[in-house]
């Protein structure tokens, strides 16, 4: 009985293989014939046209600094406020909300120049005796800010400089290449004990022109 069953299965398997081979052959022949008769395949050539427009775009990824409300510690002549990660307030009780300075990224697809200007002088912004208002531009990504010959010499980077209300040129080339397109602006304020009071505000303007 077992022998008969095995034979039957063997015959069935061989039949299945033969039928499969026949089907495969027929399919092949049909496709070969079909491709010569009717097909969606076009023999003419196609053309793709597109235009990529250039754009000069910069983005302040961090666009404000706020130390909140505070005052100079009694007995001190001035307080110092910076945007650095540590020791950002001395001789005062202000609290820096977000450390790390202002941050600018060139998100366009052309290189630009980058100049900065402050809206007010230290006397107009802070007032009092010997107020201080400085900025420090550094590359957040290496090589973001370059000189006119695309080098790194003679750049006013990584040093605190007095702010100016006229435009101060920091980068002759502010690159757009993804891994070299971010800079950081740290601020250093000296608030004298007899400074202006109330809400003190100023605006730093970044001016960028296509190179």
């Amino acid at each position, binding site marked *: 009985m077992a022998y008969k069953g095995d034979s039957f299965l063997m015959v069935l398997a061989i039949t299945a293989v033969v039928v499969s081979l026949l089907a495969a052959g027929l399919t092949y022949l049909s496709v070969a014939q079909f491709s010569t008769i009717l097909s969606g395949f076009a023999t003419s050539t196609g053309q793709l046209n597109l235009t990529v427009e250039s754009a*000069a*775009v*910069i983005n302040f990824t961090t666009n404000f600094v*706020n130390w909140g409300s505070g005052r100079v510690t009694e007995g001190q002549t001035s307080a110092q406020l910076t945007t650095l990660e540590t020791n950002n307030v001395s001789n005062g009780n202000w609290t820096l909300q977000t450390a790390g300075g202002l941050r600018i990224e060139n998100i366009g697809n052309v290189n630009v120049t980058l100049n900065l200007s402050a809206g007010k002088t230290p006397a107009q912004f802070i007032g009092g005796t010997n107020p201080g208002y400085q900025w420090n531009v550094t590359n957040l990504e290496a090589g973001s800010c370059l000189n006119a010959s695309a080098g790194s010499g003679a750049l006013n980077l990584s040093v605190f400089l007095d702010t100016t209300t006229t435009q101060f040129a920091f980068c002759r080339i502010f690159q757009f290449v993804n891994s070299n397109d971010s800079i950081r602006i740290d601020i250093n304020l000296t608030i004298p004990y007899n400074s202006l009071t109330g809400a003190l*505000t100023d605006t730093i303007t970044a001016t960028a*022109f*296509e190179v």
Partner: protein
Amino acid sequence: MKRVFFVLVLIVLFSHFSSAALGISPAGKRYDFVPNQVIKVDYTVITDDPLKEIEIYLDGDLAQYAVASKNYTVGSTIFTVTLTLPNYIDKPGQNTLAVVAREIPSDDQFLGTAITIGVLLKVFVPYPGRYIEASLNIPDGNIDELIPAEVSVTNRGVEDLNVSIELDIFSKDGQHKEKIIFQNEFIETTQNKLFRKLINSSNYRPGDYYGVANINYGNSLSINDSFRLGSLFVNLTDYTREVKKGGIQRYTLDIQSRWNGALREVFADVNVSNGKEEEIFRTPSIELIAWSDGELVGFLDTTDLSGKYDVNVTLNYNGVKTNFSADLKIKDAKIVLIIVSVLIVILILGLIVFIASKKRRSKSKR
């Protein structure tokens, strides 16, 4: 649900205040000066803040001849700049019109920011008389290839020009190799022509060359460009000369491709022997791009090796094998340790003797 909405509003407000982008498109518009031509360009002001107040203005040499269809917008916008060129412009060369978008700042932060962004529309005004801008480009190639030599000439003067070019090829040491004469061309003012000839490098040897193109256009101008002719050769520039004895040590080979093309699967077979002992190993393969340097790193079992050895390096690349001879010293770390220890002991003894003699002298003085 209300709470979620409140949080979302806060997130939107926070994101609104934490970044600010401003831009203008298109940048880099360039035209040649045509008297009385009217140029119209549509510009887009790009901002991520639909409530941002933006001033639009024009600046630069050509601002007096141009008008913008808008001078103020809130959020992104499209506007048209119409530049009506005059009959004549005094200043030859590049004249620019700056199209500027300026964010109007708001005093709502202790220290806030604003952006002013500008793109340039450049109009080139031909120089008086004859004036050309030219460039020579001869790319690197390989021996037996045809190397294209291209001279691009742009007529930047007001006069139309007949231009003839001769290109001289020199080897690095100044030996004249060949003179190539291009066909004369007539170039109208503001127009550009590309002169192209092929250098047959089959009569050259691999090495460094430079070409000097002498351009005659009524006046003359010489420009040059250097190029390299490569051969299918990878050179061994440096190798490990000394390793410490003991276990498996890193062995490096510095190589340099002299081929103007990529070489895949570059590897070395290294045979270290002194007639009695022999160690053979193969480095993993690397890919070298044209004319590049690379480092092959292998590992040498120094367990049974000590002293000086001859090294035979076979570089394999593109079906080619190149043999180099090198040498290797396998230093027994124990011997080094003993020498150093002896030196330290001598130094300490010397120091003791020196201090003792100094003390003795001071006692005898007393």
